[in-house]
């Protein structure tokens, strides 16, 4: 992904005189990606396909879903049929449609939270690694203190104070999760900061943001990308848990965690419908974990 992104400005810079070269280069990029995909072990392939399907469902939800997100289309708790693929929920909304919209809401919110957490934790971690001294001490000790409390417990405390809403949940989780990102980015950046070229950039008079972006970030990209996958899983599971507890995404938004809770009555009569949204959560987490495992193996050079 990143590779194609970086190639584009270079290809554009080559000018219009040689469009064939840029086209060939891009094709070989796609080819490389495809060959890399074919070489991946089965578990990683499985994970990538799962992620692709979820992303597709999230982006095109309104076009795929047979009914609207909060549209009441029949009696409650209808069984599975051709008209309602997975039956209806407690209010008579089509469960299959809500499952598809859930991909957009649940995964989207979790992704946004992880992005925020990385922006915050990553920046602070890099600053701590570069600045050292007091800045590093203060930031690290503050993070130590915050990490002494389990995330879910801390999140519950903060939500009771600020009130439960999606924005509050995203902010609270992003801040709490950024402590973990801070730890990792600081640790890996510390190995890079001692390099000669960073010292050189500093002597040249480059400013902090430039050093962070141009000298350090490219060199810590691989562990950070893997960490992004793992943190996403964690945030995703926490958001699902909070929504399941009724403290996260609020109705009528279609969300997998709260869908499980709303339909839990069906379980006790032996119907499996509530397991579907829970399974959707589990499947994505397993998929991301598979891909991260493979990516870590590939980039750390343990195998191949």
């Amino acid at each position: 992904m990143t590779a194609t992104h970086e190639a584009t400005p270079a290809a554009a810079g080559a000018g219009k005189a040689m469009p064939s070269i840029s086209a060939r280069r891009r094709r070989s990029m796609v080819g490389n990606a495809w060959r890399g995909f074919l070489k991946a072990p089965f578990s990683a392939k499985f994970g990538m396909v799962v992620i692709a399907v979820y992303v597709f469902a999230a982006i095109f939800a309104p076009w795929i879903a047979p009914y609207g997100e909060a549209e009441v289309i029949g009696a409650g708790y209808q069984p599975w049929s051709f008209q309602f693929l997975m039956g209806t929920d407690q209010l008579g909304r089509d469960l299959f449609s809500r499952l598809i919209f859930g991909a957009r809401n649940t995964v989207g919110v979790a992704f946004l939270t992880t992005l925020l957490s990385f922006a915050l934790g990553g920046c602070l971690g890099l600053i701590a690694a570069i600045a050292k001294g007091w800045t590093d001490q203060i930031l690290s000790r503050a993070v130590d203190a915050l990490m002494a409390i389990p995330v879910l417990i801390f999140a519950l405390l903060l939500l009771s104070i600020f009130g439960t809403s999606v924005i509050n949940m995203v902010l609270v989780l992003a801040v709490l999760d950024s402590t973990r990102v801070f730890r990792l980015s600081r640790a890996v950046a510390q190995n890079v900061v001692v390099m000669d070229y960073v010292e050189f950039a500093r002597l040249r008079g480059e400013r902090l943001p430039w050093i962070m972006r141009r000298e350090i970030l490219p060199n810590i990209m691989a562990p950070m990308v893997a960490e992004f996958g793992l943190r996403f899983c964690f945030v995703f599971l926490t958001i699902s848990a909070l929504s399941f507890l009724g403290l996260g995404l609020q109705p009528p938004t279609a969300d997998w965690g709260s869908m499980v809770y709303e339909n839990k009555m069906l379980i006790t009569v032996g119907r499996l419908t509530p397991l579907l949204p829970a399974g959707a959560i589990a499947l994505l987490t397993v998929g991301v974990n598979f891909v991260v495992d493979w990516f870590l193996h590939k980039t750390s050079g343990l195998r191949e």
Partner: protein
Amino acid sequence: MNAVLKIVLQRLGLGLITLFVVSLIIFVAILMLPGGFAEAILGQAATPETVAAFNKEIGLDQPAYIRYFNWIAGVLQGDFGTSYASRVGYRREVAEMLAPRAFNTLFLAGMTAIIAVPLSVGLGLLAALYRNTLFDRAINMVSLVSISFPEFFIAYIAIVLLASPAVFNILPSLAKVDEDAGLWERIYRCSLPAITMTLVIVAHMMRMTRAAIINVLASPYVEMARLKGAKPWQIIVRHALPNAWAPIVTVVALNLAYLIVGVVVVEFVFTYPGMGKQMVDAVTARDVPVVQACALVFAATYIILNLIADVLGIVTNPRLMHPK
């Protein structure tokens, strides 16, 4: 021995500081309460007098540091303040509300630990013994999957399998426990939540046990035992296990700490009257003193278990016992 004592004391001191800082954080959280909180709690019909009385009740007329010391002094004497659910002539002490709940949670966690710890250590030993076989790979797969599953998914799968007409219908799907239920009745009612929590934590403990044993198996004295002709099972139990205890004990303590987070969701699924359920209900009702008390108890347990893991890791490390 002196060196060990010094390190242990250092860790204990650090743990105390952490506890203090965490209590400070939990207290400071209440300072961030948005304005008009009293109106939000008391409802639209609140007169200015009741609002003022409420603000005085939660101590908003005093400076923060005095309130902190009052609060922490109360906590140390077992007084967590009064719930916002209390009204005139109907005081509800947080400590009184929490005591039976805390006992229930402790009972559930203890039951889980009794099942999960021997099970995971045993399975981990087996996986180390039969490593790189189908059994080992299957266990690896199951543990990865169970780490990725949300707790409530595992809980509902357990309900489908054991407490619904779909497969077996032998256990109660709701863990309603009365004050005067007998021990066996209590165990029967808690069985599904305990099974769920076991499934949640077993995988990780098992994996770490396996890793710890395999790590030791690479050392020369195990090679020696093998050359001597000891049986594989003997090598693991007699030669490898004693040196693998430290990491295993640490992992067990850490996972028991993890139970604290799992307990919130699992209690909610089974409507088990424990502290986790209480905390979720209090968050919904924005009953801040109750949430604060729960958060403090959970966080303190978490820190203390981590501390125990740390100290056990040091004490069971034979290298530290005999300094060169």
